[in-house]
């Protein structure tokens, strides 16, 4: 069973990673790798969470890493399409104040 798939789109200095499925301990390293690669290739990174159904603390750690990388590179790290369920988790952990959520 594929727990998470990432679809990558690039355009004009920004990489969009559409994340589908569950972002947990087992899938988080995959997204972390994709985010690090995206920051190497392009300036800004955007995560499309439209099809994300769950995020665990390991997933939040990946968002934290993304945030830190963006800050170090002075780049933009944004989230789009965040569902109500995911938004609840982000609000609970205070990520809504730290991330750019469109």
């Amino acid at each position: 069973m594929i727990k998470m798939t990432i679809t990558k789109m690039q355009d004009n200095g920004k990489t969009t990673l559409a994340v589908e499925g569950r972002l947990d301990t087992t899938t988080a390293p995959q997204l972390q790798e994709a985010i690090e690669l995206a920051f190497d290739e392009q300036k800004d990174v955007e995560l499309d969470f439209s099809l994300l159904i769950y995020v665990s603390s390991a997933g939040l750690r990946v968002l934290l890493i993304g945030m830190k990388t963006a800050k170090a590179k002075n780049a933009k790290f944004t989230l789009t399409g965040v569902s109500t369920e995911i938004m609840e988790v982000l609000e609970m952990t205070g990520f809504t104040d730290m991330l750019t959520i469109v």
Partner: protein
Amino acid sequence: VKLRNKILIPVALILIVAVAMITIVNYNIARYYVTDMIDTEIDAAIDNIIAAERLSKEITGIVIDELNVKNISLVRALAEIIRLDSSALETDEMIRLADMLNVTEVHVADDDGILRHGNVAEYFGFDFASGNQSRPFLKILDDPALEIAQEAQPNVAIGAMFSYIGVTRTDRPGLVQVGISAEILDELTASFDIQKTVERSRLGKNGYMFIVKDGIITAHFDADMIGRSFNPSVQQRVSKHRLWLTFDGVEYYAGEYNTNGFTAYAVVTRNEFFSQINMMSTVSIVVSTVAIVLILLLLLFISWRITLPIKSLLTASKEIARGNLDYSIDIHTRDEIEELGVSVNKMAVDLKDYIANLQTVTAEKERIGAELDVATKIQTSMLPCLFPAFPHRDEFDIYASMQPAKEVGGDFYDFFLIDDQTLGIVMADVSGKGIPAALFMVIAKTLIKNTAQTASFGGGGKSPKEVLEIVNNLLYENNDADMFVTVFLGYFEIPSGKLTYVNAGHNPPLIKRAGEKFDWLKTKQGFILGGVEDISYTQYEIELKAGDELLLYTDGITEAVNNEEELFSEQSLLESANKAYDLPLKELTESIKRDIDTFAEGAQQADDITMLILRYLG
């Protein structure tokens, strides 16, 4: 042994079929060959008979021609004797001359063709014109130059077979004639008898010839058969001159040839005909059988050479399967079997290495597992676990529990007196699992408790907001692993019931007012601890009355999963807590845990399940 049979049985079957086919083909070839051979013999024998018959006729003709010439000379001499001496015409003289000349009859006729003189007196006066046999001689009277030598035929007088020769008289007109008995001619031609040729002709071992004329056997290999009538029953006619016939109860293969008024037969008995074919077939069967036996022996040898190393391979694999990994085989067949042997040897060595390696790895895993168990125990033992925790305080009751997941996690709770009037309560969850989470948890717990207690030591007193801001920066430094911890930190002022708290990214607590049900204590959440430097937290205050309860927990409860990967959810927690709200604290936590277990349907617990309940007694 089975492999050998697999090779031998099909080959043997193929060979047997091949031999059967060869035998059938061979039989037909043998039959064709034998028939051809016998046919050749039959043709030769019949040719021989026909040739002999023709030769005999030719020779007889020559002899008769020669004889006629001599006899004519003889008759001329007789006529001359009569001219010289007429007394020779006396009957007695005639008899004497006939004996002397060795002829049967002597006749002298006058110019009227009337017999006047001779050695047989009763013929005197016979008119030559009166008989068919004698009449042709009258031509001599008209043409004295004519000489007549007649073929043997019945004479006029008695019908006996006679050959007559006649010429003109030289003393006066008339004719002189002598008669020679055919018996003399028969004696002359006897040496050319067909019977002798037939007796000399043999076909194969027992084949022979015979001649049939007008249905009567006239010549036969067995002279006793001559004169018997020949009435065979024809079984099958093979061709114009070949047939199968039965005579006297014996079946023969026969050659039949009609010529010059007789039929020549050359016959071979059926038994001989087929015994020759069988003999030829038998030879080929014997040769084929010997060849089969030789081929099978060769195959036996080949299969032995193949199966012998396979047997040693079998032995080797059995030994290796039994665990004898030091077993090694030695095959030098310079073929695939040898390669297989080398592979088996390599496999044994590899297996040995692998097992040794596996043992090392297993030992290593066991060691790590044991160490993780110790880590879990250390982690658990760091949490206050003696209840009642504050037996001398009757203003509040507190109970907490943590049920660790299989893998060591990062949940922790804590409660401690900051001063005589203030109880600090902590519920926290470190991101991730395993040893890193456990280590981070130890640091976080220690920092929070120390910071909270040290702060008050100076007398100035630090609020939960200040404590977490300090700890956040402490955790942020040297946090290469990018770990973080969600923390609920509350200061409970016992006399007043005032609760000052900061929620740094942790699950919102449940609060139950006296006489009411549990509900969420939802306020603006702060950011997690250890993620970002210099965070400013907001702290909130609420007032607890006697009988109020505060339930803290971690996401191990709300995110517990069942086999369908469904989450237990905040709603279920709320319902579960309200179901057992009036129970003592310990029983309340146990009831919630039971509900989670029921929900999980035996699915493995993924995260620590941690709860803390504070009840204010006033």
